[in-house]
């Protein structure tokens, strides 16, 4: 009898185990929530493509058994849009860290949202550049430390929920690794959503962010994330909070139906062709 390592083993590249993620890292929780969502939705795994940039989170396509591309730092979103336009039948998922998605790739995020490009962007927010050893990120909250901001960040952090919503994303949610079931449900919605869906996940980076901020073990940092993550229902994206000392608001803040990028493109082509026929 063949031994089954895990009920969801078919979605995992077991030959790539162990992962490079540190013990206690939150990214594994996200990966598991995602493959559970895919499994429950009964999506054909051959219809999913995962695109990532650089960073700890960027390792995702190495470990999940879907078609995948590990591309340049910040450029996962435009690559994903290219894939989606070439093969509209596929579900295209971008998975990246806060540095990848909000810093070097920030411009791509707002433009993909503006276009309502039919892709899902998952952003692991661990407040720091983890892979390169702990530099200040665009999400680093006030009153926390990094190795390039040893006395605290010099600027206020980005609130990704507000940015995505303001840029026109049609599905926006924020969860944390403390709520893997709610995260899984949110993944299911995003995967079925028409248009641009954006999910931010507040996650623990115990080795880098945790250590410099005085958390002696992953559990302590996890508890902090659990405590500040407040789920609020029925509020809009601009009523949410992103505050390390008080509250990082979790929940689903935008879910609306608008024409996707591909539909808008097709519509313009159709109208142009029809008007051309009239003139002829």
């Amino acid at each position, binding site marked *: 009898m063949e031994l089954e390592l895990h009920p969801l083993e078919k979605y995992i590249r077991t030959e790539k185990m162990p992962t490079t993620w540190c013990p206690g890292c939150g990214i594994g929780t996200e990966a598991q929530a995602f493959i559970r969502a895919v499994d429950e939705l009964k999506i054909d795994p051959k219809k999913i493509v995962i695109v990532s940039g650089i960073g700890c989170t960027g390792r995702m396509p190495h470990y999940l058994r879907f078609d995948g591309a590990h591309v340049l730092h910040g450029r996962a979103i435009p690559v994903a849009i290219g894939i989606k336009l070439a093969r509209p039948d596929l579900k295209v998922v971008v998975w990246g860290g806060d540095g990848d998605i909000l*810093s070097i790739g920030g411009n791509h995020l707002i433009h993909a949202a503006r276009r309502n490009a039919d892709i899902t962007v998952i952003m692991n927010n661990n407040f720091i550049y983890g892979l390169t050893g702990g530099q200040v990120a665009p999400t680093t909250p006030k009153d926390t430390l990094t190795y*390039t*901001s040893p006395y605290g960040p010099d600027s206020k952090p980005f609130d990704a929920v507000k940015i995505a919503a303001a840029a026109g994303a049609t599905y926006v949610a924020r969860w944390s690794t403390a709520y893997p079931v709610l995260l899984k449900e949110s993944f299911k919605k995003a995967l079925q959503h028409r248009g641009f869906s954006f999910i931010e996940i507040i996650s623990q980076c115990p080795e880098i962010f945790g250590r410099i901020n005085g958390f002696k073990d992953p559990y302590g940092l996890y508890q902090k994330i659990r405590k500040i993550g407040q789920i609020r229902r029925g509020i809009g994206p601009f009523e949410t909070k992103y505050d390390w000392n008080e509250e990082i608001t979790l929940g689903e803040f935008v879910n609306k139906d608008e024409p996707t990028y591909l539909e808008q493109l097709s519509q313009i082509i159709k109208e142009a062709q029809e008007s051309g026929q009239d003139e002829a």
Partner: protein
Amino acid sequence: MEELTKVEWVRLPLSTNYAVAYAAKDADIDIVSAYPITPQTTVVEKLSEFIANGELKAQMIHVESEHSALSAAIGASAMGARAFTATASQGLELMHEVLHIASGLRLPIVMSVAARALSAPISIWGDYTDLMNTRDTSWVVLIAGSAQEAYDSVLQAYKIAEDSRVLLPVMVGYDGFLMSHTYEPVSVLANSGAALRYIPKKVTWATLNPERPITVGAMANPDWYYEIKYQQVEAMKAAYEVVKEADAEYGRTFGRSYGIIEETDTDGSDLNVLTYGGIYGTLLESSEIIRKNGIKAGFARLRLFRPFPYEEVLKLAEKSSALVVLDRAITYGMPIAGPLAREVISVLYSHGINIPVYNFIVGIGQRSFTENDALKVVSASFEMLKRGQKIDESIYWGVRE
């Protein structure tokens, strides 16, 4: 020599990245802008520590990409600030169009590059593909072979860049990981004041100034663009002399100088090996086993890649029966694919020197190159030389075809 006695040094165990950070601090830079990238990151981490501790009075800009890092350095330099940045690999590639802006605007920015392989596939490991891609950007490119030399080269880099005959940005490269992350004893100045006697802070370049408004970088039409770019050709020629002067003056002031090509046993040898970066250390380590195998090999290390030091290369070639050129980068689509080998062959041909040049591609994506590899490469070359054989294609050492 009187100056020499006044200089006090502190000997510290430093990685090349940290040595570079110490040099930037001692150069009293005004601004550092950078984005994290392996294996550069600890340069700017150290600098942010210096700034945070008050050891360096400078502004650190945590930018959102390398494109912005060099752009911010350009803005600061255009305002007369002494600007510094550091990068590697894809970061240097993302900067590529900005590299041309920095040199075209004639801004004396200094940047360190922990040389690393390029994607795809992703490799965080060292080779020189990134640095060699900057060949035509009109930056002066120095390549250090030790942490001490990297420290000294960053100070020399400001001397070269800010010389009014040059006014070009300078890049100081070194091996990613093999140097960036390994520790060596390094002598750093006990106080920055001594460095500033060598590189006084004086704005020698044209800057922006709202009091007397000008526009830099404005549109140049076919009637003048060519002449403006030709000025960079002239500046590069001047840089060749200034690099030598800066090194000599560094020697007089601080007691250490390197010349343009570092050489060991190159006189009266059977053949000479030429390379760049930290691999030179491996070659020196291998010299004993090579000698025991009955081959008299000399070793040379190029310290300057742009402007290309053709005079020193010619002198080396004139006393060599053959040159073995080790390259840690590939020029795809050329039979002789090593960037240094190609430059060497071009210089030899235009001066009518017809000795065999054996080009080996080694250390790609940090594939190990050991003393034993050095022995085999030199032995293989010596056999070819004895047979009078030349090669018309690079030898891809150790590749599994």
